[in-house]
């Protein structure tokens, strides 16, 4: 082979392989990282305003996780998969989007959904058990929180593909976990996105576990971001507890998609600080020591330190941000403490645009039954 072909191929490979280590803009001590010029140019530090706005959401996100946990313990909610420790990813996934963009979240991405200004109580409809989903996905351009793993990535590709065909200027962020990256749908979604060259950013929160299964049993690849080259798209990895880093890396990928540059795979290295859900017992499969190692990497602590040191975050601002968080927590408490009534007729109403004769018969039977029971 000619050396120019070899060089070209090496260059295109390099463009798709992730950085040798996860991108980081602010380190664990809350200090800005002195990145090389190339990295700094590709992943610029967000503006102080952007960071402050994001920090506000970060604090609210943590508060939502805590509040939801409490509501589960009080029996107001059936189950809550907490994103405690992953809030930087949650917040950035929503904030990197414009109004015309779409978000495809999973069951764990409640905070991301709320960060996109979906009503917190509507979000909780699913976890309270009133219905399978509570908000309007079309209005908010936020898909239902997906439970069947990785399936939503294909929906995201479809939305992006339709947007492209219709000439819309929308970008789609599709979220999933490290475990979900093993599913066939992950593969098909990334490949479709690359082949159709559609504006999707795949955002994998690698929180090191799929319920009890550690990453090492999920993949032996150098990183999950190394999967990207196999589809012909760039892959990048970022410190998922560094809000500035995640904002920047996602921002760059979203901009690239918006500019017609096609899809990107972003892997955030983070950690699920709590059990998979309240129904899980993480002590069965990991040590407290391991969890403790991640505590100092907390996304809030480091962001607070950085913003305080930069004199952007004042005591006053911090108080206001705390108030914001408390307001959301209060909304959640109020919403979940008030009883909602469910309507048995709803069982039949939405299966099709119009109920079939069979469903009408079944609805009538149930109504008759309930009327005889005096319900």
């Amino acid at each position, binding site marked *: 082979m000619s050396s120019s072909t070899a060089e070209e191929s090496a260059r295109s490979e390099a463009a798709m392989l992730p950085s040798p280590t996860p991108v980081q803009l602010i380190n664990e001590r809350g200090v800005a990282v002195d990145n090389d010029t190339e990295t700094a140019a590709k992943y610029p530090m967000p503006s102080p305003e952007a960071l402050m706005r994001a920090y506000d959401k970060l604090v609210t996100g943590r508060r939502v996780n805590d509040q939801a946990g409490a509501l589960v313990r009080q029996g107001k909610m059936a189950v809550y998969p907490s994103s405690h420790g992953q809030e930087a990813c949650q917040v950035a996934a929503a904030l990197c989007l414009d109004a015309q963009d*779409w978000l495809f979240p999973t069951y764990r991405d409640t905070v991301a959904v709320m960060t996109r200004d979906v009503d917190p109580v509507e979000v909780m409809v699913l976890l309270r058990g009133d*219905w*399978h*989903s509570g908000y*309007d*996905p*079309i*209005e908010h351009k936020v*898909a*239902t929180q997906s439970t*069947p793993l990785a*399936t939503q*990535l*294909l*929906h*995201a*590709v*479809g*939305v*992006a*593909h*339709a*947007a492209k*065909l*219709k000439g819309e200027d929308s970008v789609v962020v599709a979220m999933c976990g490290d475990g979900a990256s093993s599913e*066939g*749908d992950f*593969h*098909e*979604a990334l*490949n*479709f996105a690359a*082949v159709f060259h559609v504006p999707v950013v795949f955002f994998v929160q690698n929180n090191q576990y799929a319920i009890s299964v550690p990453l090492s049993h999920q993949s032996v690849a150098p990183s999950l971001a190394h999967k990207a080259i196999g589809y012909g798209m760039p892959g990048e990895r970022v410190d998922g507890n560094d809000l500035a880093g995640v904002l920047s890396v996602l921002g760059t990928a979203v901009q690239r998609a918006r500019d017609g540059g096609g899809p990107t795979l972003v892997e955030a290295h983070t950690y699920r600080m709590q059990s998979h859900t309240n129904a899980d017992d993480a002590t069965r499969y990991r040590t407290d020591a391991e969890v403790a190692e991640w505590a100092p990497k907390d996304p809030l602590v480091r962001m607070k330190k950085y913003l305080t040191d930069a004199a952007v975050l004042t005591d006053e601002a911090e108080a206001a941000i705390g108030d914001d968080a408390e307001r959301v927590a209060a909304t959640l408490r109020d919403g979940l403490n008030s009883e909602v009534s469910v309507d048995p007729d*709803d069982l039949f*109403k*939405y*299966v*099709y*645009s119009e109920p*079939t*004769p*069979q469903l009408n018969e079944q609805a009538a039977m149930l109504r008759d039954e309930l009327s005889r029971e005096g319900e």
Partner: protein
Amino acid sequence: MTSVADQQTPAQAAAGRVADDDGTTTAAPVTFGKALTAALSDAMDSDEGVVVFGEDVGPLGGVFRITDGLTDRFGEQRCFDTPLAEAGIMGMAVGMAMNGMRPVVEMQFDAFAYPAFEQVVSHVAKMHNRTKGKVKLPIVIRIPYAGGIGGVEHHCDSSESYYVHTPGLTVLAPATVADAYTMLRDAIDSDDPVVFLEPKKMYWSKDAVDLKALETARRDPEVASGIGKAVVAREGTDATLIAYGPSVPTALAAADVAASEGRSLQVVDVRSLVPFDDETVAAAVRTTGRAVVIAEAPGFASVASEIVARVQERCFHSLAAPVRRVVGFDTPFPAPKLEHYYLPSVDRILDAVDDLQWED
């Protein structure tokens, strides 16, 4: 019997009109396959949001040539090939529908829709319900199905039972050229996801149908969608044969033979598996008091089981004999040289009719 006879399809209505206009039916023979192609083409013409995609549906026109010419006519953006991944096709269809399009996807063969099963069951079927109707998924899933073409393994499954058992899916199984056209148009017009089952052995079967007239007839707001409507394909008084898709011609042939032997068999073409037309089917069986359900799929927990269950629930006191089934054996679909043993045949249907306790 009028109530049954009244259940006309738009196809029949249109065909009637054509015949009325000039006294005779002058339409040229058209194949089942070409009627489908015309339906796709007309639907794409009438609604920009209709997009067709799948494996080999672009330049090749599909392995059965049903999408022949669509890429040429509507461009690569409206009819295109995807990478080879059925879950991918189905999942992408979900997203495109969420974003306002009306995807019509082709699964190349029945058994090759199985990789998409999770997408179909967990999302396509459930999204409308999950979102209380806020997200509609007007997706049509075209599936060439069933046997009779000497296909190798995995190319001849009758997979309808998997879909009809899944709430949220409309499942259509046309058996005539006219229905191929109108029901595919109905399916594309539906705001609900439709599994559209195409009996592959009938792709080349012909009928004198004026597709233009059908197209015009559909615009008449008086002519309702065929979804949810069975039809009496042949009148008869002694027993009722209930069939759909590839079994309808077999049932009609059996009725022919029976007639020559002095027995009058009614044939009901179910057409719409979900929603099911209890009214037409039950009314038909009540007039004869005897019924045989015919289907190619393995019988166990199948569409045929359901029809038997529904008929005995609704017509119990009209029945002179148990409802019989002539269905596929509970075996995998056999290799080509054995399929004639497997498929419901005229003889097997007549045997079942003979068994309907006529002496009682």
